[in-house]
């Protein structure tokens, strides 16, 4: 399938989904249960909230976390920094497939403990191929194995994001620094975005997350790692609660091989710019026209 026809197929797909999605969007109203508080249910879309309203919501969410998890947390609304557009690159020549990044994500982002959820999946792939669909995530032997390479996959924060387009209620959108976010209080859990993502990067919260109080990461943001309710979509936000304050993402800091490079692509002196300019970077499934902000490369 060539570039245009595939893109057209995507558009057509989007259109048909739209109609069905509308019906689906109404369904949760009839199945509405008191697990959602009345306040949460009546809340307006994140983008329409004024600072006072948002403040009230953040305090309410903090109270709910204290009540449900016994953890006192701080939930902030961290906005993009002007002049910053994030980019992330990963050196496949040094990644050893140890899943330290996935583990760091699990802890940083307050994921459900029993399912050991994470926004990062590490694929083990035969050397000489780069077929995402043939990669295995279920390896348990010592790594790296000489005949394999390892490819961590997380949200690519696409500039032309299929997941954003299919959302029937605009609960997910792209922000000024390139990060695609989800308003967990607006999401209706229809999972169209999950199906639309060619990188399998979105997760559905099947259950209310279980996290022991002492393991809850208290540094939280509304659009990123606050504990998500059951029945909504979630995804990697490049740790915006850290990165919008200038810090490195948790997965990068945890990497024992230094395979990950993160930064502001608008800054000509940044490490990420050096990689983009000096390494032969590539993106996954480029023919889909998604324009990812996550890049891979091999040394040499």
């Amino acid at each position, binding site marked *: 399938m060539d570039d245009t026809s595939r893109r057209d197929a995507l558009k057509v797909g989007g259109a048909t989904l739209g109609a069905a999605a509308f019906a689906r969007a109404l369904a949760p109203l009839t199945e509405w249960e008191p697990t959602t508080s009345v306040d949460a249910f009546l809340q307006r879309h994140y983008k329409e909230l004024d600072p006072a309203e948002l403040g009230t919501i953040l305090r309410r969410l903090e109270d709910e976390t204290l009540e449900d998890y016994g953890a006192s947390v701080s939930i902030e609304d961290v906005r993009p920094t002007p002049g910053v557009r994030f980019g992330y690159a990963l050196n496949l020549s040094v990644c050893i497939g140890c899943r330290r990044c996935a583990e760091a994500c699990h802890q940083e982002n307050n994921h459900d403990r029993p399912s050991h959820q*994470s926004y990062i999946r590490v694929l083990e792939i035969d050397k000489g191929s780069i077929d995402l669909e043939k990669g295995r995530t279920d390896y348990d032997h010592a790594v790296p194995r000489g005949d394999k390479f390892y490819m961590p996959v997380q949200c690519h924060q696409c500039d032309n994001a299929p997941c954003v387009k299919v959302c029937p209620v605009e609960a997910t959108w792209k922000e*000024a620094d*390139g990060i695609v976010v989800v308003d967990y209080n607006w999401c209706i859990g229809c999972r169209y975005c999950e199906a639309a993502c060619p990188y399998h990067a979105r997760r559905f919260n099947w259950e209310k997350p279980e996290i022991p109080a002492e393991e809850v990461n208290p540094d939280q943001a509304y659009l990123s790692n606050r504990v998500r309710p059951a029945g909504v979509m979630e995804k990697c936000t490049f740790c915006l609660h850290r990165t919008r304050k200038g810090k*490195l993402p948790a997965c*990068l800091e945890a990497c024992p091989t*230094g395979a990950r490079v993160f930064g502001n692509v608008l800054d000509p002196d940044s490490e990420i710019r050096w990689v983009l300019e000096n*390494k032969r*970077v590539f993106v996954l499934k480029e023919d889909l026209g998604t*324009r990812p902000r996550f890049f891979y490369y091999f040394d040499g």
Partner: protein
Amino acid sequence: MSPPPPTSLGAIVFLAACSTEFADPGREVGPAVADGAAYPTEVHTPTTLGVVDTPLVDVNGTPIGVACATCHGPDADSAWAARPGEPFHTGTELDHGDLACDACHDPADRGRLHLADGRSLELGDTMQLCAQCHGPKFTTWQNGAHGGMNGYWDTRRGPRLRNHCVDCHAPHAPQIAPVTPMPRAHDRGLHGEE
């Protein structure tokens, strides 16, 4: 590692990554960060450098180290001063290309390293030693794309800590040892997973 054929070319991807227009500007942005003095970037100093572990341990179970200078070099304690031919470091196994000991150690002063041009280095200057033979890798490290870091990507807002080569590569056997992977997620409905 042999690279598979890349699926796209850097230049195109790069231009796309740096373009400032995007589909939905979303809500307005937060406060700007003032340009100013950058916080420092420090390189982690491995505490093992210049000290050799003994079989003795302290109350915490940490091996007691002895400084190289105790036995080597002009200031060596005469009671301990190493005499040629005396067997001592019996555990040293070298698996680093086909290098000889004296490619790195100064035969005239065992407490020091040296470069091919004869320049003498402290054990603490190990990175310069590595850089001599691994120039391209060192350049990559200097550009922040090898060896990783901790702290802030934006050094206007906080400091950064870089890893030293020997944090990850033992000088005598620099290849990375295999590790056991961390547990994976148990996702519903993905192949290769339950």
